[in-house]
């Protein structure tokens, strides 16, 4: 059976890993290749690179970063952040991404997903879905443009539509939990997991191993982790130990 995957995520700006602290800007957190290789050695199952460049110059560096990481990385690489056009996706794949994650561009034009799936296959077409609880507490709505815009659109219905259009995986980020270290949004995970038959990656809110165990039990196929690894609070190996102790199969 498939193992529960752990996916370290690197936020990259202008060729450097950065750490975002909400409303406090970005801090340098190292070289992406060094980080990528270190996480692979710790047992990471895949790597995610999110291009968070604020400027066109930084964005131009993203394909270069992907190519440098690809040369040394021996596990799958998903790249997202700022993918607006078919040409953006193609450039990232050519540089060495195995999967491309699309967020806002797919919400604005859902056929983006079906074009990617037809051209490259569902296995490299990833929907990055940011969701936030509705203010009346009834379900979740889609959030786009890096959290700046609430769409009012139902997040679970969009997940279903995206899967039907050809997305092969969903990286599901809880905008309420991201950066809070209060755990993944388990109700959101369960709702999306039950709505689609493609893998769902839990993202946003992990502070410790128990949060990962809870998310896997709620239906997540994979767990995205960032700050707790970058800060050195824990390692991929230690997180896998905890998953295994909880009875979940992991790759060793």
């Amino acid at each position, binding site marked *: *059976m*498939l*193992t529960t*995957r752990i996916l370290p995520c690197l936020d990259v700006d202008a060729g450097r890993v950065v750490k975002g602290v909400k409303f406090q800007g970005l801090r340098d957190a190292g070289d992406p290749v060094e980080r990528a290789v270190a996480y*692979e050695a710790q047992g990471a*199952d895949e790597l995610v690179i999110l291009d968070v460049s604020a400027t066109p110059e930084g964005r131009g560096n993203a394909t270069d970063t992907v*190519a440098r990481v*690809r*040369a*040394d*990385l*021996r*596990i*799958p*690489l998903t790249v997202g952040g700022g993918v607006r056009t078919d040409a953006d996706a193609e450039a990232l*794949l*050519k*540089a*060495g*991404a*195995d999967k491309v994650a699309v967020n806002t561009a797919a919400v604005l034009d859902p056929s983006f997903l079906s074009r990617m799936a037809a*051209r*490259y*296959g*569902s*296995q*490299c077409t990833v929907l990055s879905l940011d969701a936030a609880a509705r203010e009346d507490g009834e379900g979740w709505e889609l959030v786009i443009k890096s959290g700046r815009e609430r769409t009012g659109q139902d997040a679970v219905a969009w997940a279903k539509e995206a899967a039907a259009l050809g997305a*092969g*995986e969903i990286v599901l980020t809880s905008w309420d939990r991201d950066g809070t270290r209060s755990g993944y949004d388990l109700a959101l995970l369960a709702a999306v997991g039950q709505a689609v*038959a*493609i*893998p769902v990656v839990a993202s946003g809110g992990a502070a410790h191993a128990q949060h990962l165990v809870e998310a896997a039990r709620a239906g997540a*196929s*994979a767990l995205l982790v960032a700050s707790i690894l970058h800060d050195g609070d824990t390692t991929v190996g230690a997180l896998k130990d905890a998953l295994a102790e909880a009875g979940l199969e992991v*790759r*060793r």
Partner: protein
Amino acid sequence: MTLVIDTGTTNLASMMAALRRLDLEPEPVTQADGIADATRVVLPGVGAFGAGMRRLDERGFSDPLRARIAAGRPLLAVCLGLQLLCETSTESPGVTGLGVLPVPVERFATAAIVPQLGWNHVAPSPECTLLRDGYAYFANSYRLTRAPAGWHAAFTTHGERFVAAVERGPILATQFHPELSGAWGHDLLAAWGAAT
């Protein structure tokens, strides 16, 4: 030198990087010249069975590939590459594959989540010389359920038992992606390279 067949639809970057790390000198080729006799050939592949086969036929790859396999020359076929070696696939009814492996390719019948996307355990039969026990990275919706006579196989379970890979001498065909399978995949590619 390793010729890597480039049919224009497959993302070759990860395979090229993996072969470079092993000094296997990968060279992408869009024409079939030299395919029958090259030291090593890689048939990667993602996408649909019908489209993949049409491109192999159009560009003249099919006959030299069959000749190469019949002669037992080193070949690595990955993912759709393995499936193209078979006769038919329910993904593209009516399309004839290379027919080297006389078994059908069918969609996962009982798995809850398709595509299979992630790491799964590979268990080789004792006769295998290249394949080892370990975890490999898969990304597939279709699979073979049995290996033809004369080929040694490794198996994996995703809802049902299916063929993870087959080998015969220096010919290795994998449903998983060795180029994305970490240290284990690196070692498998190294073993294949050493056998060539």
